[in-house]
Each structure stands twice: as C-alpha cells, then as structure tokens.
C-alpha cells in the first residue's frame, strides 16, 4: 500500500467554534492506482488532500505515505485548482526551478528532463513564454508537467480542471491519462464531478458531507486505455455514473429536509 489512512480526523478550531473537516477516515491507496476522491463541496476532500500533501496536519488518526521502492517516507507532487505557476518564470523555468530544488535530481540532466516534459504536454513552442501569455488550459498543462517531472512517488491533484471550459477539460483528461499510464505513478485526484471521476479513476472514494466521512469506495471496472467518446456510449459507464449519482444524491437529501422545516 502506498497510502494508508486510519481513523484520520481533522477539526478546525477558530474562536471557540469547531468545524469538523473530515472524521474517522479509513482507506488505502495502492501503488500505481488512479484514485479519485469524490464529494460535494465542503465535504473536506480538499482538506484531506492537503493533509496528504503535508500542507495541513490531521487532528487525530494515522496517515502513512510510503515510498515506491524503499521504506522511506514517500515524496509527493501537487497540482492545485489554480495553476500556481510562478508568474515571473517562463514555462521552462517554472519546471526547472522545482527540479533544481529536488534532491533526487542531483547529477541529472535537468535541461533534458525539462524538454522531455514540455514536449509531453505539447508546449514546445511555448517554452519561453510567461504564464500570463498562455491560456488557462496551457497553464494547467505546465502545472501537470512540472508535477510529473519531479518524479514524486505520489501525485496529488485538487480539482485541477475546475476552472477550465468543457472542451479543454476533456482534452486534458485524455492527456492526463496518457501521461499517467506512461509514468505509472500513484495519482490521487479530488473532484466534485461524477463523470470526471468515472472516466479517470480505478477506484472512487465517495465522501459524505458535514462531517466528511467515507461513504463508499467504488471500483470502476472500465477497460483502459479509455477514450471519452467511445466510453460514454458503454452501458457500463452509464451504470457507474448512475450509481455514483445516487450515492451523492443521498448526500443532498438532508439539506432538502432542513429547508422544508424552516418554511
């Protein structure tokens, strides 16, 4: 197991007020797996991902992240909702800067790695552009390239395509799956989009909200490599989507009742 989560809980305290982000989570993520965390907004899925990334600490419980080929603590890379590229660096330098700071990359030919990954996301012609000169989709491609280039054990993605238009999102889903299959990395992908989760994932963890708990973990038994237009015609695909939709719909029920009571 690459990631093991046991009884993991997080509570935010602010001025005597306590908000539970997630509570008593138990699950495991396998090596090389594409693992989606799906849930309504405010269910604590981003908070969970940030905890795995080391940007937040859990209040209680256990989280272990193992390296792929040793017993050491695994390294992570992350793609954020907003691209998080440094505006003062060109495409090339945005990727290179992280490599220069990566101890795994000592004695490696950084320029070759940078070129390889710029090529991989099809941005060769834009290597010396600044982020503000590129489209949102291009920026997120660089962000993905930079995360893979660092060769972390685990890649974390926090709704990376949420601000992109539908066509761009579909194109990037294909690109992401392609790179993931070539590089064989464990990938944890947070989303609130059911179809996105079904199309990408090996397994989908469905979270319930308030507090965030594991509602179910669904195995997506769809063949790879996946191609969106072909896949969406399959009854199996539609069944998976319906199944997840039903699970998430339950999550919205309590709010409806509350609304009725208040009138």
């Amino acid at each position, binding site marked *: 197991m690459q990631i093991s989560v046991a009884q993991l809980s997080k509570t935010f305290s602010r001025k005597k007020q306590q908000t539970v982000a997630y509570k008593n989570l138990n699950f495991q993520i396998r090596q090389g797996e594409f693992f989606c965390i799906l849930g309504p907004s405010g269910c604590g899925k981003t908070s969970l991902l940030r905890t795995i*990334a*080391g*940007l937040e600490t859990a209040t209680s419980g256990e989280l272990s992240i193992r390296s792929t080929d040793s017993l050491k603590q695994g390294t*992570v*890379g*992350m793609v*954020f909702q*907003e691209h*998080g590229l*440094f*505006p*003062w*660096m060109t495409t090339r330098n945005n990727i290179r*800067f*992280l490599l*220069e*700071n*990566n*101890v795994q990359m000592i004695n490696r030919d950084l320029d070759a790695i940078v070129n390889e990954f710029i090529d991989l996301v099809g941005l060769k012609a834009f290597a010396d552009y*600044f*982020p*503000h000169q590129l489209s949102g989709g291009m920026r997120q491609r660089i962000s993905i390239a930079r995360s893979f280039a*660092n060769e972390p054990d685990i890649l974390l993605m926090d709704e990376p395509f949420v601000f992109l238009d539908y066509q761009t999102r579909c194109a990037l889903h294909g690109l992401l799956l392609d790179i993931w299959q070539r590089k064989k990395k464990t990938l944890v992908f947070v989303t609130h989009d059911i179809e996105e989760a079904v199309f990408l994932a090996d397994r989908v963890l469905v979270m319930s909200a308030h507090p965030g708990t594991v509602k179910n973990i669904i195995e997506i038994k769809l063949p790879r490599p996946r191609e969106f237009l072909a896949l969406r015609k399959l009854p199996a695909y539609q069944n998976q989507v319906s199944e997840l939709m039903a699970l998430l719909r339950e999550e919205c029920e309590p709010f409806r009742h509350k609304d009725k009571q208040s009138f």
Partner: protein
Amino acid sequence: MFKNRYFWLFASPLGILLLWEACTRSGFLDARFFPAPSAVFHYLIFTSPGEGLWTDVSASLYRIFWGYLAGCAGGIALGVTMGLNHIVRIMVYPLVALLYPIPKIAVLPLIMLVFGIGEMSKIVVVAIGSFFLVLINTLHGVDSVAKIYHDVAQVYRIKKTSFVLRVILPGALPAIFTGLKLAIGYSLVIVVAAEFSGADAGIGYLIWQSWETFSIKAMYAGIFVIGVLGLFFSLALNLLERRLTPWRDK
C-alpha cells in the same frame, strides 16, 4: 506626433513654462521675484556652470547615491525578514510605526551630533528617509505574495534561500518598486533640506546662498535642477522596473 508618448510626457511641464513666460513678459508677474523661464535657463546654461553648479550637483548626487543605496538595501532586507519571520515582525513593527512619522529633517541635528557635520550625517539622513519608505512597501509586497506560492514551495521542498530569492523577492518586486520611487523623490527633499544648513556645497546650499545674496536667477536654476533630477530618476526607475518585471508587460 500626438501619438508619441514622449510628446505628452513633456507637453505638460512645457505648457506651464510657456504660461509663466507669458505672465512675466506681460508684466503680470514681477520679473525680480519671478524671472522668465527663458532668463532662468539662460542663466542656468551660461552663468551657473562658471559659479560651480557642477560642484553643487555632484555633491548632492554623491549624498543621494550612497544614502539612497544604503537605505533601500536595508529597507528591502529588513522588510523581507519581517515579512517572513513572525517574531521579528512583532518585535520590529512598533519601532517602525513609532519612528516612521518623525520628520527625518527634525533629527538632523541629532544625527550631526553623532556623525559630525560632514558628509556622513547627510548620507545617513537620506538613508533613514529612504529606509522607512522602502521597508514599509517591501513588507506589504512580501505579504501580497499569494498563499498558493507558499504551498507550492512547501510541497516541492524549495530551499529557504531559493524561496526568498526566486519566489518572495520577485513576488514583492512591484511593491518594492513603489517604495523605491517614493524614496528617490524623498531623498531629493531631504538632501536639499539638509544642505540648507551646515553644508559648503550642494543644490540646497546653492539655493540658500542665492536667496541670501538675492541672486534670484541662481535660486531658480537650483530649483530647476532638482525638478529635472526628479524627472530623470523617475524615468530611470520606470525603465528599470520594466526590465526587471518582464512578466508584467501590458
């Protein structure tokens, strides 16, 4: 011609000078107190150099250069440190808030007591003036670096020096430049005021001497030189800013 930005850059000061020229020539303004700009320029170009204008200008520039340089360097260094270190920030902030509003020229006698009446005291007072403006703007700039860049740096384990030099400094650079521009203007103000008393050269000295000897054209010549220096410094800093922040081209 009207689409050229340099035309518009010089159009407004030129307009004022023309208006002034007209007022003096028509007798609306007293030529003894408000000599025509043409007369002042004539004096500035043909008479001032013979009376040691360059000695005065270079004396002032020397004081501004070293004072501004030291003040800005100190302001950027402390501003970044305060921005990144919570304890330093809490400890130093009250001192800054307390000392910043004190007019720097008010402490000149004190500075002269410590550093003597020579060059050093003038350089120090310019440095102090620049220091606070750059410090406050740098601190604001460091605060304005978005949280996501801190997150990216943490996830990818960016080393501290790399983080400061290649994330925080460039991120704060636009605000730092605001400080640098305010400080260069303020440096001119301070150096001239400091030279009014206890100096034997400098633009401030020139103006004060000219006033005392009722050499009005020489006084205006000094004032013009300050204005031109101010304009030159602003343009130079704007140029430098565009060079150093190419990602902000519009």
